[in-house]
């Protein structure tokens, strides 16, 4: 194992312990010695099991990209609320004026994590659902054809790529 790889593994291991510890402290609220030691034990056991399973890698613990991902989430929330408004109006209008369509959206995302973030962002936004992923194309079902032009997804594609992979060009 190369030295940089080993350093990376130790980093993921410590990051996982930190994240699990914070989650445990935030959810518990009991700080007697017994409960604290049980918590420490379970955090260490979970981290060791994750190491044994070989799932300690960049995709399972993307702590290094936490800030960009949180920033992306903030942008996505605004988009979600804008899209919600459209679907709410469609639900309440007396005559149904929906115009459902299936479109194929090409994505520039390379890594599986970036594709997952992009496809899940599409599903999370009301009015569009990712139906199937084939290579670098995503089949999207949309409530209105006008909101599902390929241009509408360019910004989301670019931002999810930037947040997960850290670069706009591939």
């Amino acid at each position: 194992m190369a030295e940089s790889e080993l350093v990376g593994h130790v980093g993921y291991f410590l990051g996982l312990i930190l994240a699990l510890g914070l989650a445990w402290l935030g959810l518990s609220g009991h700080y007697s010695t017994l409960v604290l030691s049980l918590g420490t034990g379970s955090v260490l056991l979970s981290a060791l099991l994750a190491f044994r399973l070989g799932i300690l890698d960049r995709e399972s613990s993307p702590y290094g990209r936490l800030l960009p991902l949180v920033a992306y989430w903030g942008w996505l929330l605004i988009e979600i609320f804008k899209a919600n408004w459209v679907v709410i109006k469609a639900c309440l209008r007396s005559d149904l004026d929906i115009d459902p369509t299936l479109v194929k959206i090409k994505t520039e995302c390379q890594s599986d994590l970036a594709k997952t973030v992009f496809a899940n962002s599409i599903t999370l936004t009301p009015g569009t659902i990712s139906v199937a992923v084939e290579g670098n194309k995503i089949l999207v079902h949309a409530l209105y054809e006008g909101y599902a032009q390929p241009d509408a997804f360019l910004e989301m594609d670019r931002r999810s790529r930037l947040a997960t992979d850290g670069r706009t060009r591939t």
Partner: protein
Amino acid sequence: MSEILEFLLQVKPMLGGALCLLGAVLAVIGTVGVLRFPDFYTRLHAASITDTAAATLLIVGMLLLSPDVFTAVKLLTVWVFIFLTSPAAGHALANAAHTAGVEPLIGSRARNRDEGDQI
């Protein structure tokens, strides 16, 4: 300064209650959409209002009503998990329907379909 703080503390429960009420109304609107929309895929769109906007407003309202930090942390955790899992569930449903060969109604066919004979 202390008057502003006092005012905020008085307004907080009312604001929390109002946000919860708004979230509940959005959940009802989502249900209305599920009942009115013509086919499987369009109904998923209506259900996603309940998943996103209604859940967010309800949880923010409950955050304002929460008595201590630990309740707030738990509510935030619930919110994060809803946002991580609901698109996975939505995609799984849509993908299962697509794989099973459920044809979506496209364009004006969805509109002109009589609301009486739903699938």
